[in-house]
């Protein structure tokens, strides 16, 4: 199925979890937060939250700013 991760299209297996989607980008888990379709998914729920076709996944971290 198709997902958007940080604005880029990804072809991923059916039923992929948030945790697996994050690992498409990084092995890092601390200092990282995830929103799916503009809702935050708490870190504790990454492994148990399955994604659906067309979901927009945003993986954010802190950068220099302000």
């Amino acid at each position, binding site marked *: 199925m198709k997902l958007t991760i940080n604005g880029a299209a990804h072809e991923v297996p059916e039923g992929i979890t948030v945790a697996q989607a994050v690992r498409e980008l990084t092995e*890092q888990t601390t*200092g990282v*937060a995830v929103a799916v379709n503009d809702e*935050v998914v708490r870190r504790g729920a990454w492994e148990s939250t399955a994604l659906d076709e067309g979901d927009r996944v945003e*993986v*954010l971290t802190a950068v*220099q*700013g*302000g």
Partner: protein
Amino acid sequence: MDDLIIAGEKFASRLIMGTGGAPSLEVLDRALVASATELTTVAMRRLDPGARGSVLDVLKKRDIRVLPNTAGCFTAGEAVLTARLAREALDTNWVKLEVIADERTLLPDPIETFDAAERLVADGFVVLPYIGDDPALARRLEQAGCAAVMPLGAPIGSGLGIRNPHNIELIVEAAGVPVILDAGIGTASDAALAMELGCDAVLLATAVTRARDPELMAGAMRLAVESGRMARQAGRIPKRHHALASSPMD
């Protein structure tokens, strides 16, 4: 110098640093140390798998508390989501709320900012909103439960100093929460003036990170904030139209 207290948390430094604009993490690290800051802003952005080193590592090494901002947001909805992501990523419920009206001026949008502030306060955040130098809005945000107000001196990155000192004084006079002068600082005298006007702290980034020598300017800002605070507490003499002899006349 007396402590700065925001939402019950004490800070020995009244200089809050931003981290934007530093040419490298090494330069940023030296500037942060020279500034003696204890609270420093970061922005939230999409994770870049190719990025090497993190501003968070620098802050952790120096034991500096992180203050995430919502820079880049144009609506209350975006800002609320960004604050929630920052809380999840950084384990802090503090947020510098920044909702920008347009990219040319980067001036804060008062309507969206107020809307976001109410929603974030209701969600348990310690909200520090970046606002124009508007005493009425500052009062309304304090009433809405914000932990501080952060009026600008001048537009972000402009280095124009404090364009309306009178309004900053009006905000300070009425405020029951800390007033943090944010944005527009160009050099040390601007930071000192902010403190002399009665601000509780100064937040700056560009003036240090884009200075020719960021580490040296960070030290200058530290001293300026301390000087301004001491002068404010000492009580300046009134301005007079004519001279007043300091030596005996007879």
